[in-house]
């Protein structure tokens, strides 16, 4: 199966291991992510202010490219890009007059017809089938106790949520298919503090402490998540001793498929935990 | 108009298209030295004796030069020394750089590397920082870096191209410093065209025996100047724009000690005192010698020659003017603008109105230009335009020899220039004719960029002796880097030991007397600063009411 793929800026610069592990894992499943020939920075925060139509231009331009490259679907891995593209798309679908205005402004482009569907990789994997994923597992990750963490962008606002915003389960299902022992964490949908990390990092430090200690108290040895900003916050702002490593779901998939993962971007090094569980050894033996 | 050309030119254009296939294999023979000497004597504009005269005043009295240059040397100063208050100094610096082009900026950087703080320097320029001939250079910079080449060959090519009249110590400096300059450019982040292994793409130019021209598409000058200027901005080197120097100041010990500037916008004069002055004022294309069009920028008016001469420096080789063989001859709006020699280096050949070859495409510039003039005006094989004649440069040949798309990729500047006027030079030939391009000579310097007057340095196009009677392509961008660097280093060394005496403009007064004594009665003033292009009708009704 192949599907057009929108990476977003973060995955190309500061969260390269999320992209790398995602491409490896999806390839192992036979899913080909085809990067759009031309794509634009979605604008993230700016386009979330939907009263200013100008800021919707960047995501719509990308969706036009999806349309013109012959796709009716595009998948993205970065949670914020997912949220931004999906909200922009929804705004256009629900407000044909705004779509008309943007199409008129983009006079050098073909019109956006509003038919593209925006996917997050987790949704694509669910469609692919967690049972199918289980069949591809070569290295059982059992013994690894991991608490899923969702953050905000996958679940809020409700109109773009990819799962139940109060009690989502998609990450849990994926983890179970990999053989990981899931640790329930009631703070799994709590916001990590997001961009406050820039100029109010004490807020992020506080939220990180809450989220991580809640998971640790319940026996988690690590957290697993999807968003590169949550990753940055939870990975770099744990101040206490006994810091938990933070995995991208794609990294755990890659490991489960017996593939090597580059953890050099991680501040809290997961290698000790993985060695302890014998996971890295199993992968080395396979090579 | 069809494809940018009027119907009247199409008969000739068709002939060029027709002969192209056959000409692919033809190579016109290079000229023997005897034949080329004869050609120059008969057709090169430098050999028209009635277009020159001997200058009657100054340290190089008796030297022959074009009327237009002599007119500037035999002219009154712009300022009246009695109206200048030299005690009221506006800028007191270690190093004054007059000219904001390549040479001046390189000199500033190397003075900085050798201990002069940016706060103690000042670049002054009549237009903006970077407005210069340096910015417009297209074809490349000669550096003998390949194993099959050597600096000795580079030396030989340079001195031969200059008709063996170049100053040997200056040519030695030029070719020996060349690799160092290229390394410096690499370190600064200048982008040169390279192959996949990182070796520079190199081509040959007129008169070069090896491929040694390094280039950045056909924007070589612009790429170099942008980076050098960016570096000087990062260092906060102060620049005064629209404030040309109009006279040099000396001190009572005979050393050059500063300059008078004129703020072109407020008309204030400014007094700059400096321990060392680097003259990097560029060329003289806007003098339109013998009414030729020019490739030069708006401000190329030989100001530095005039000011230096008044302080007592000698000039050299001003009887030799370089006419670039291929200036655009059509359309009228771009008449005279440079078509880089690299176009010929990559395979385009000059052909006459019948589409036939008449000269080897890569003779040294003076020989090539003379051949074009002979073809148009003696053999009458040129194409008529509204303002003169021209020969074709068969640019579509480049696409045939190197593949479709080569012209757009290698000559974006040229392609763009013609496209703006409806001509696609990858499909149609372009019309060319010699254009006033380079001041071969200039202010005499030694290999440390020193002039004969203490405190005064000169570099770049304004300086003379490096190229003899004819400069080779790719040696000018090299020249401004090599001697700009030497000027900066020399000036920095000199500054440490300078003690300035009392400022004076006596040399200006003396010069005025010398003019009178030589019987020169004139209303002319110099330096020119900017050429006059205002419409005749508008000027006829001009009346400055002093409001």
């Amino acid at each position, binding site marked *: 199966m192949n599907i057009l793929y929108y990476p977003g800026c973060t995955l*190309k*610069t*500061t969260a390269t291991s999320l992209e790398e592990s995602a491409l490896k894992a999806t390839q192992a499943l036979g899913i080909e992510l085809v990067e759009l020939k031309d794509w*634009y*920075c979605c604008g993230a925060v700016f386009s979330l202010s939907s009263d200013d139509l*100008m*800021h919707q*231009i*960047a995501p719509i*331009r990308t969706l036009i490219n999806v349309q013109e490259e012959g796709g009716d679907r595009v998948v993205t891995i970065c949670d914020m890009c997912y949220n931004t593209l999906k909200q922009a798309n929804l705004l256009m679908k629900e407000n044909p007059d705004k779509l008309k205005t943007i199409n008129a402004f983009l006079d*050098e482009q073909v019109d956006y017809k509003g038919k593209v569907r925006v996917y997050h990789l987790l949704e694509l994997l669910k469609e692919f089938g967690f049972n199918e994923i289980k069949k591809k597992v070569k290295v059982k990750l059992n013994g690894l106790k991991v608490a899923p963490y969702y953050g905000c962008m996958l679940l809020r606002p409700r109109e773009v949520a990819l799962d139940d915003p109060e009690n989502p389960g998609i990450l849990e299902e994926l983890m179970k298919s990999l053989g990981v022992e899931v640790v329930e964490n009631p703070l799994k949908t709590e916001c990590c503090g997001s961009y406050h990390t820039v100029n109010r990092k004490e807020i992020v430090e506080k939220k990180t402490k809450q989220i991580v200690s809640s998971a640790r108290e319940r026996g988690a040895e690590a957290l697993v998540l999807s968003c590169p900003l949550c990753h940055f916050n939870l990975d770099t702002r744990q101040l206490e001793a006994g810091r938990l490593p933070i995995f991208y779901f794609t990294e755990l998939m890659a490991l489960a498929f017996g593939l090597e993962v580059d953890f050099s971007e991680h501040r809290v090094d997961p290698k000790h935990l993985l060695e302890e569980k014998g996971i890295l050894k199993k992968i080395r033996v396979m090579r | 108009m069809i494809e940018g050309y009027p119907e009247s030119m199409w008969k000739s254009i068709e002939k060029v298209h027709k002969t192209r296939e056959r000409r692919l294999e033809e190579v016109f023979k290079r000229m023997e030295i005897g034949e080329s000497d004869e050609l120059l004597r008969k057709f090169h504009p430098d050999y028209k004796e009635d277009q020159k005269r001997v200058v009657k005043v100054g340290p190089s009295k008796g030297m022959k030069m074009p009327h237009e240059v002599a007119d500037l040397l035999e002219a009154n100063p712009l300022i009246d020394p009695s109206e200048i208050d030299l005690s009221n100094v506006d800028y007191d610096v270690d190093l004054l750089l007059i000219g904001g082009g390549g040479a001046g900026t390189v000199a500033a950087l190397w003075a900085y590397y050798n201990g002069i703080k940016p706060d103690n320097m000042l670049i002054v320029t009549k*237009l*903006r920082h970077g*407005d210069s001939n340096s910015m*417009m250079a297209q074809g490349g910079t000669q550096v003998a*870096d*390949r*194993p099959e080449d*050597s*600096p*000795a*060959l580079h*030396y*030989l090519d340079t*001195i*031969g191209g200059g008709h*063996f009249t170049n100053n*040997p*110590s200056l*040519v030695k400096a030029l070719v020996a410093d060349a*690799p*160092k300059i290229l390394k410096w450019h*690499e370190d*600064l*982040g200048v*982008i*040169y065209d*390279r192959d*996949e292994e*990182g070796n*520079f793409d190199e081509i*040959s130019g007129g008169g070069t025996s090896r491929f040694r021209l390094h280039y950045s*598409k056909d*924007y070589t000058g612009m790429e170099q100047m*942008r*980076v050098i200027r960016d570096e000087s*901005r*990062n260092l*906060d080197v102060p620049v005064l724009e*629209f404030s040309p120097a109009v006279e040099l100041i000396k001190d009572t010990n005979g050393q050059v000690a500063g300059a008078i500037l004129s703020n*072109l916008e407020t008309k204030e004069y400014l007094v700059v005192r400096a321990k060392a002055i680097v003259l990097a004022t560029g060329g003289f294309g806007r003098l339109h010698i013998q009414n030729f069009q020019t490739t030069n*920028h708006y401000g190329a008016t030989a100001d530095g020659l005039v000011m230096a001469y008044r302080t007592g420096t000698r000039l050299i080789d001003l009887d030799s003017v370089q006419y670039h063989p291929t200036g655009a001859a059509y359309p009228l*709006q*771009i008449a005279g603008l*440079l078509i880089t020699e690299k176009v010929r280096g990559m395979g385009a050949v000059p052909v006459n109105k019948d589409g036939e070859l008449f000269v080897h495409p890569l003779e040294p510039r003076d020989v090539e230009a003379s051949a074009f003039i002979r073809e148009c005006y003696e053999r009458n094989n040129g194409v008529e335009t509204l303002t003169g004649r021209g020969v074709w440069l068969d640019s579509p040949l480049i696409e045939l020899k190197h593949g479709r798309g080569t012209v757009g990729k290698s000559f974006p500047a040229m392609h*763009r*220039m013609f496209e*703006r006027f409806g001509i696609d030079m990858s499909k149609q030939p372009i019309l060319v004719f010699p254009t006033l391009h380079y001041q071969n000579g200039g202010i005499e310097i030694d290999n440390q960029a020193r002039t004969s007057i203490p405190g005064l340095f000169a570099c770049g196009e304004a300086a003379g002796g490096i190229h003899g009677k004819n400069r080779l392509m790719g040696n000018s961008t090299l020249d401004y880097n090599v001697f700009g660097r030497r000027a900066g280093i020399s000036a920095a060394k000199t500054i440490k030991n300078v003690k300035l005496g009392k400022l004076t403009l006596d040399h200006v007064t003396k010069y005025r007397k010398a003019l009178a004594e030589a019987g020169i009665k004139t209303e002319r003033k110099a330096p020119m600063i900017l050429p006059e292009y*205002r419409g005749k009708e*508008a000027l006829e009704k001009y009346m400055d009411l002093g409001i």
Partner: protein
Amino acid sequence: MATKPEMAKIYIMGKEHQVPKELTIMGALEYAGYKYIRGAGCRAGFCGACSTIYRKKGEYKLYSDLACQTLVQDGMRLVQLPFVPAVKAKYDLGKLDVSKNTVLEYYPEIARCVTCNTCNKTCPQDLEVMEFIQAALKGDIEKSARLSFDCIQCGLCAVRCPADIKHYHVGQLVRRLYGKYMSKKSKNLEKRLKEMAHGKYDSEIDRLTRASKEELRQIYKSRDIEAAK
């Protein structure tokens, strides 16, 4: 020429002038009596000094181009913009790092790009300006340097950008980063520099500096010339 040239009516900063139709905007201003101090540089399309904004007869849109390379049109209304007060970041190139978001660090405003395409429509060199800014945002230095190469730094893009990006300064940083850190270095040059430091060519060049004109002529005549490709 006895025949009067065809004229066009243009408006220079609102003032009406009759000028010969064949002139460029720059030629027309001079014809009308303006002496350029600001607003003219190379007069050949390389320096960006003559940025001009104009409107055509009967249209409402604003166009932008270079005065030295653009023909006048009947009914044209124009003004030149000789200066843009854009901030240029200061940096020590030797201390920079291409692996991170260096460009974003020095020009953070590029993240405000909404891909409105105004810069592309404005550029007189027809560059893909928006694309080189987007490439810089994505950390693709090579693409950004390549797309921005022909930029003459005229400033028109910066003046019209709603996000206040200074594209031409961004391009300059990108290109220097590429040239210094991403271009493969020349082995030939390294070798030649070493050879010259050891004086390999000194005696040969010294001999040439001392040779007479006649000797030089002979050596020059007998040199072999590398064949053109």
